């Protein structure tokens, strides 16, 4: 009875399966040479907030009579951190942008045409051929992920670039530095 009582006020592990707060830094996270998970999560949230605000203030977006098209482009991973990690961050960023009322007002967020064309063919969705948008109204968000290693110190550098599809002009760029000691 006493033993059971010791855990009485806390959530039974069986009902949560041992899930823990994703913003908690664990021992494995600290020991790993890879980018710190809580830092990556916070990074994606901060960047999404900044991106949402900045993108919607862009000339050609703020005053446009119709919603512009936002497409997620490729990522380039130049680090020892697996591409899956960076894709996760890119995906979280996209998720946060999709939830933003500001972004919803100004943009249609779309999947890339190549992927949707293969879906279209798989489904046999006759008459629903994936759309081509006006390049002047289409913006592609691309990312680069760099790192520098000196002894115990690792410096991660993330860069996001938004390009207009018609002019190829970079209309937005945001950088984020993350330094960590092993």
């Amino acid at each position: 009875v006493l033993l059971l009582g010791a855990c009485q006020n806390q959530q039974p592990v069986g009902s949560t399966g041992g899930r823990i707060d994703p913003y908690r830094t664990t021992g494995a996270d600290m020991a790993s040479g890879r980018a710190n998970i809580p830092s990556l999560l916070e990074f994606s949230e901060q960047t999404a907030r900044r991106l949402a605000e900045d993108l919607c203030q862009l000339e050609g977006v703020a005053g446009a009579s119709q919603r512009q098209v936002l497409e997620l482009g490729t990522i380039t991973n130049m680090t020892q951190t697996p591409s899956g990690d960076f894709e996760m961050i890119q995906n979280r960023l996209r998720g946060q942008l999709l939830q933003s009322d500001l972004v919803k007002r100004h943009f249609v967020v779309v999947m890339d045409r190549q992927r949707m064309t293969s879906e279209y063919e798989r489904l046999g969705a006759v008459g629903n051929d994936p759309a081509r948008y006006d390049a002047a109204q289409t913006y592609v968000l691309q990312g680069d992920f760099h790192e520098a290693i000196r002894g115990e110190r690792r410096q991660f550098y993330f860069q996001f670039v938004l390009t207009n599809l018609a002019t190829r002009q970079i209309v937005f760029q945001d950088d984020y530095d993350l330094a960590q000691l092993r």
Partner: protein
Amino acid sequence: MTTLIFAACATTPPTTRLTIDDYNTTIAVVTQSLAASDFLRDRGPDSEPIVIVVDRVLNLTTDIIPPAEQWMMVARLRGAMPIIELERNKAITFQITPEKHQLLRDAGFEGDFRTGKPATHVMSAVFRSMRRELRDPREEGHIVAVTDFYQLEYTIVNVASREIVWSDSFEFQRQATGLRID
């Protein structure tokens, strides 16, 4: 995007694998999110009818998720929604995936699948994870602790416009200790 925080008083679980409870919680969270989404709220009985095809989970985690579970995790989301009500009040119908056409053939269907309504939307899910490890430098193959961050994401995309009309995810982290690699 939903992130849940849990506390537990028992010992750290010996594995970080996805559990049945993770699945149950994910379905509960995303079903609630979809029910409250702009995508469903903005639709009525006179809206342009849409046909949703449900795709299986794309597993990008380090877990092995059998195909049956991959189908189950999207079928349960569809099953959690009132299908008759959606057809009547929101002009939404669901369609069997091309991969399951053989099941209808086996059941005696001899018609042409291409003559039905073409799919307009795809509901899919992607499960991702990030792993961090603390290895024992004195013993080859011994992992002192491992942390897996999971993101279980669901999305509905318009095939023709490529627009992501709804997306949400459930995120959590799990830590395990005392693992050994074969």
